[in-house]
């Protein structure tokens, strides 16, 4: 905390005066600006986007990661301070145990509140006698994890014996295991799978540097935090390689073990990299035993090496595999080499280009045959007020959009968005918003709504190639979509869009695979206009992101 020592420079001089050298990327670099905008403006910054944008610049990415860690830490403290807490089930040590979240072979996992830290923690309580061999192994897991401090490895806060039960408590991760992600979203896109691989390489590098092998790397032992951070957990099968082999621990999952281990060879840390190769394949195919669809060649090469039958051909170090995955990700994103150094002039031009994108035809669907009257209007919010978007209007970066809604009955509203990359986001309802379903009848409701007394908007932060928005109005909650709301696909209310065009009613065909799948699921509800109805918008930017 040394910030008071800084020099009192001219506060208006925020820019770096010296010229960055060749191949360097200054603070006005558009890719960096986009990554920063995403980090600052999204409710939960999605790391896969920053990783994609800055794949070829590890130093900037690492620096941004430090900022993201602090931002996420601050958010976590704010959320814990403002959230409502249910009454504790029981107390263990100094922790208020709130709810059981999982139960394993020898331990139960709870969400608990640490009054001293003022945050939620995950508490893993061992069920057996405190001096049993499994309890010793349980405390050994805490030993191993406590030795590693890395953002992709679950952070352990402490371990102790209380009331005859051994327990370890660690950071509470608001997210889902990859098994659940696969179940709910199906196979991952190659960029997403490569991103997960890169993050897990960082986790494994930290473990291996501490002389620890994980021993059971598989989708069930990896969490995807809301916002995209990948977190490795459960070291119950791991430890120092010598200890693991001496204890002849038959842990591990056959599909993720290399052939020589299945044949009885001793375990080594690099076997985790074989398991990681298998895990990435599972993400790409959707299941451990399925065949993946087309894999980009660069990623295919990494996987072939990671899972080679011949152990000598495989990766020996996590850093090597991470480097190759980063190169594969850069290739998938079409940025194989660091681009030439951008100048401030180019950046100004980019903003000017984004400012002349035009708004296409806009139509509002009405359902006059039904006694249920609903009206929707997409509008732009400016400092002067809110203006409906009409045909021929122009949108620019920084524009803010709202959706006005009227209904003569209370209703449940869901707003979803899918981009050209197939990423699905739920834009409403969102946790933390004051507006929630059901929305009241008779009177205008403006979405996305407000938070902390402040009205929010969806903001155009950059231009995407294609964005589709689906608004679903329903008389009763739609379980199929509510499931998404509960699992919080993403709380990113600010997606990149450029040109808005709305298809004529009746002629609307959505292209997004996730949205189409969802429409199919709620098909029976949609067949009755008194139960549910939809309005879809497509935001097109045929030219792609202007630079």
């Amino acid at each position: 905390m040394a910030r008071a020592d800084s020099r009192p420079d001219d506060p208006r001089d925020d820019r770096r005066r010296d010229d960055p050298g060749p191949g360097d990327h200054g603070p006005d670099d558009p890719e960096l600006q986009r990554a920063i905008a995403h980090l600052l403006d999204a409710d939960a910054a999605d790391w896969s986007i920053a990783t994609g944008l800055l794949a070829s610049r590890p130093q900037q990415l690492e620096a941004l990661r430090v900022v993201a860690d602090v931002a996420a830490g601050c958010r976590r403290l704010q959320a814990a301070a403002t959230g409502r807490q249910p009454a504790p089930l029981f107390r263990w040590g100094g922790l208020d145990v709130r709810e059981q979240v999982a139960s394993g072979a020898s331990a139960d996992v709870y969400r608990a509140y640490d009054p001293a830290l003022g945050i939620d923690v995950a508490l893993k309580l061992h069920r057996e006698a405190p001096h049993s061999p499994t309890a010793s192994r349980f405390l050994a897991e805490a030993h191993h994890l406590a030795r590693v401090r890395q953002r992709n490895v679950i952070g352990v806060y402490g371990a102790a014996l209380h009331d005859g039960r051994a327990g370890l408590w660690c950071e509470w991760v608001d997210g889902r295991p990859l098994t659940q992600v696969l179940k709910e979203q199906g196979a991952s896109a190659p960029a997403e799978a490569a991103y997960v691989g890169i993050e897990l390489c960082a986790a494994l590098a930290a473990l291996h540097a501490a002389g620890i092998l994980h021993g059971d790397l598989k989708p069930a032992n990896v969490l995807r935090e809301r916002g995209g951070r990948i977190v490795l957990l459960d070291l119950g099968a791991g430890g120092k390689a010598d200890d693991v082999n001496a204890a002849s621990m038959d842990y591990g999952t056959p599909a993720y073990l290399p052939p020589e281990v299945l044949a009885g060879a001793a375990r080594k840390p690099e076997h985790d990299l074989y398991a990681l190769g298998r895990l990435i394949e599972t993400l790409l195919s959707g299941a451990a035993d399925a065949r993946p669809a087309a894999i980009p060649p660069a990623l295919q090469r990494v996987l072939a090496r990671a899972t080679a039958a011949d152990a000598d051909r495989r990766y020996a170090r996590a850093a090597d595999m991470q480097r190759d995955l980063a190169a594969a990700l850069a290739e998938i994103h079409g940025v194989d080499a660091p681009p030439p150094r951008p100048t401030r002039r180019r950046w100004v031009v980019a903003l000017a280009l984004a400012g002349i994108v035009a708004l296409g035809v806009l139509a509002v669907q009405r359902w006059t045959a039904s006694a249920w009257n609903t009206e929707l209007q997409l509008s732009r919010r400016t400092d002067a007020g809110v203006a409906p978007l009409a045909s021929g209007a122009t949108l620019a970066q920084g524009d803010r959009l709202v959706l006005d809604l009227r209904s003569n009955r209370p209703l449940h509203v869901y707003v979803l968005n899918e981009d050209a990359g197939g990423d699905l986001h739920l834009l409403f309802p969102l946790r933390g918003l004051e507006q929630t379903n059901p929305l009241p009848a008779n009177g205008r409701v403006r979405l996305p709504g407000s938070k902390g007394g402040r009205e929010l908007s969806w903001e155009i932060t950059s231009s995407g190639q294609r964005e589709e928005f689906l608004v679903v109005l329903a008389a009763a909650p739609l379980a199929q979509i509510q499931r998404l709301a509960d699992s919080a696909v993403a709380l990113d209310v600010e997606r990149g869009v450029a040109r808005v065009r709305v298809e004529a009613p009746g002629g609307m065909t959505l292209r997004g695979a996730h949205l189409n799948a969802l429409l199919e699921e709620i098909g029976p509800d949609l067949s009755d206009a008194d139960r549910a109805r939809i309005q879809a918008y497509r935001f097109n930017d045929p030219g792609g992101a202007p630079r």
Partner: protein
Amino acid sequence: MPTLIDEPTLTLLQRLRAGDASARERLVARYLPRLTRWAHGRLPTGARDLSDTHDLVQVTLVRVLSHLEGFEHSGGGSLLGYLQQALLNVLRNEIRRSRRRGEHGELPEELATDEAESPLAQAAGRESLERYERALAQLTRNQQELIVMRMELALDYDEMAGELGSTRDAVRMALRRAVARLVEVLSDGAR
């Protein structure tokens, strides 16, 4: 529309200068919850609990707002930034005073909760927080204020614009440049 900033800070500040004690109460009420959460995140776990922290922050705010000459001579910046800086100095003293060990005697030291570590250091990671703070200290005062308001105090752009007497868009662009500069300092430090 109910808003966080019901009366502009500048108006309250003028009323306070004119001797209106209720303006001071309004300002304390406005900043207290946010700065208490912020301070609690920064104090070592063993130092003070939340209600103690609340008292500490309240006393500090009342004291600083009763002696505004310091702010008048601080050479620009926002009132919130000035209060946060004053509080930071109080916290530093508090941390120095409270350096004491925890009570997890029966556990290996690496497993005991480190009571000398703040909740923020635990939530963000000590190494990341230290690198962030070192880099932040190299930025201009104005840049530091923007970053602290958005990231540490969780103000939205409209609230920041209100505190800084600026516009939402200007604040957003200035903040992006400040974070870009922070990233640059962090990248240079990694070399």
